């Protein structure tokens, strides 16, 4: 299998704070990869580095064979991203936002694709409402739609289930499981260990900017361990060390 995302000794420092400390990992094509870690462990920094939004202080990150630091725009053309915090632009309607994204990403049948997403995530009645007037859950659905509307070969998504109701969480989880079956890759950053165990094929655990562990979920299960307990013991050990 080919690695579509790779980091080699990746570091990021903000002044005196080390957000990522020599992290090396590889994510193979077709994986549903879970990046796990407590608050402030460096997960969002990792996504921002992989998508060329910020530059590393050391090491390198490659996505689909492209150097994320030097070719950030080309990386962002080819991947889909759900950022951690940003909401869609306040004064565009949901439909207009998808048209906006579609025009920038040069998607020609954007209207048809948008309709599919309105149907799948059940928010077609809100498509002409301004984004600022949408509930948090609906904004999250919209951000999800914009990340996948161009059917990218790699999607990097930060807490995609946040603010979604249990029914919609289930829809999204099923979608993600189906998405990777066609040799496409999802890089998922999440706090939810249960979700990671349920849908991810491989995972890595970050703590204080350091990579504590990476491996496959099935390997962990075969060893008789469960991801939540494994994560907690590893992080607690790291905290005590």
């Amino acid at each position, binding site marked *: 299998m080919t690695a579509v995302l790779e980091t080699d000794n990746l570091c990021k420092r903000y002044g005196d704070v080390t957000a990522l400390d020599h992290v090396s990992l590889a994510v193979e094509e077709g994986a549903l990869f879970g990046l796990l870690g407590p608050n402030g462990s460096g997960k969002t920094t990792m996504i*921002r580095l992989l*998508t060329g*939004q*910020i*530059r590393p202080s050391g090491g390198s990150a490659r996505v689909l064979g492209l150097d994320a630091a030097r070719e*950030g*725009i*080309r990386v*962002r*053309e080819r991947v*889909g*991203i*759900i*950022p951690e*915090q*940003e*909401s869609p*632009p*306040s*004064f*565009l*309607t949901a*439909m*207009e936002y998808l*048209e*906006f*994204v579609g*025009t*920038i*990403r040069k998607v020609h049948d954007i209207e048809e694709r948008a309709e599919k997403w309105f149907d799948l995530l059940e928010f077609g009645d*809100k498509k*002409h*409402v*301004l984004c*600022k*007037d949408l509930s948090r859950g609906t904004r999250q659905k919209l*951000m999800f739609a*914009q*990340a996948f509307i161009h059917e990218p070969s790699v999607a990097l998504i930060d807490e995609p289930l946040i603010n979604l109701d249990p029914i919609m969480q289930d829809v999204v989880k099923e979608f993600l499981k189906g998405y990777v079956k066609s040799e496409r890759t999802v890089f998922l950053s999440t706090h939810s260990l249960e979700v990671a165990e349920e849908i991810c094929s491989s995972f890595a655990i970050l703590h204080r900017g350091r990579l504590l562990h990476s491996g496959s979920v099935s390997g962990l299960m075969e060893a008789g361990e469960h991801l939540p307990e494994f994560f907690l013991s590893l992080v607690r050990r790291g905290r005590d060390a």
Partner: protein
Amino acid sequence: MPELFWRMMKEEWRIHSTMFGQISFALFPVMIFGIVWMSAFLLPMLHASLPQVDLAFLAYAIFLSLGFMVGGFGLLGNEMMNRRFGQASLLVYSARSLPLSERFIFANFVIKDTVYYLLLWVFPFCFGYIAASPFTGASLQKALLLLPTLALSFISGLCTIFLLSTLYVRSKAACWAAILAVSLSLGYMVVLNGSNPALNFPPYMLYMNFSWGAFIVACLMLAALFSLSLLLFSPEQGVTTKQYRGLLRPLIHRFRRLPNPPLTAKDFVDLHRSGIGIGQAIFSFLLPLIAIFLFLSLIDPYLPAHGFFILFSLITGVVASTMYTWVTEFDSFGAYACLPVATSTLIQSKVTTFAILQAIPAVFIAAAAFLTGEGAFALPAIVFCLSSSFFGAGVMAYLCGLSPGVLIYNVNVLFTYLVVNGAVFAILSALSFANPLFASISVVLLVPALLFVERAMSRWDSVDPIGF
């Protein structure tokens, strides 16, 4: 109230100091002080042709206009605050998690902003003049009077626009009615009394003839204006499920020949739907310039023939260059982080939007030219205005990228901005005073303006996007 106010003061300090260092931010008022102190030594040379009293008019006009330009607090609903500061956890959002009303928090926010403007701009200006007065032969008593009266001038502008912008958000008809009533009163003074309304501007009257009674009355009137604005202010501009017809696609089509049609189209949708486009055009452009026009007309007799109009077109250009701030204040780079859009592309699109908005100053100067009987010089005046505006915006884009509203408080940035613009505009003004037709020469400014924008694009692409 004091607790929240002081925490907001600290928060504002940290926003700026974490972006470009504590010393750089702390030096900002020192620099204003220094510039005014040094400039004060030039005043004796100007007194031969321009009486001191009339020079004071300019200071009142500048600070009244500054108050006008920053006073549009009424336009800031929660949504605008989000867009201005991103999804940051600022204290101004704490109404949802603390037992404090939105109005109370907003009052603290406005007072905090006002105090910051006084500390950063007004007081250093006054202290610079006061410190120079023993050496320039200016009356110390008059110099000291600048402190309360210029502060009043600034707060007058701020409170007036705060009230009008609040009315504008509540009811556009009420806002227009208020503007009409003020205009009619000013027109009455001009037509029936033949006097310039600027002569009856309370802070200037206090400067000429100070009394504690009049000062207290002026303060009370401003406090009443401020309280009324707060009372009328609606913090939450109503979440609705109103359906909107699509505007983006037709605009993308209309702008298809421009460099970044979707980004420019989005800017115009933002300006239109938020009400900020018209609001800023009235409160940050039209009204400040009308005030400047009234004040500037008082020194008309001391300027060369047509000099007043040429100087006014330059000032309009400088004010118009701040439209770059209007279009950049809407977005943080974060909103585009998930898209293949570089900082340079965003700067290019903001400059494009800015360029389209320059139709406003062009029409304004053309109208002013014909209304003041200067129609013969309309073309050079428009060229001068637009060239100065593009040049100012180009310098701003180079120095501040997408964050002019924040980075302008970096002392290095402001100093460079003032020196570069000041030198260029002084030379061109001198040429234009010699012959108004020479104002057309300013078209050459478009070349360095373009170079500044190009340099801005490569400069800001090479650093991580700024956020807080």
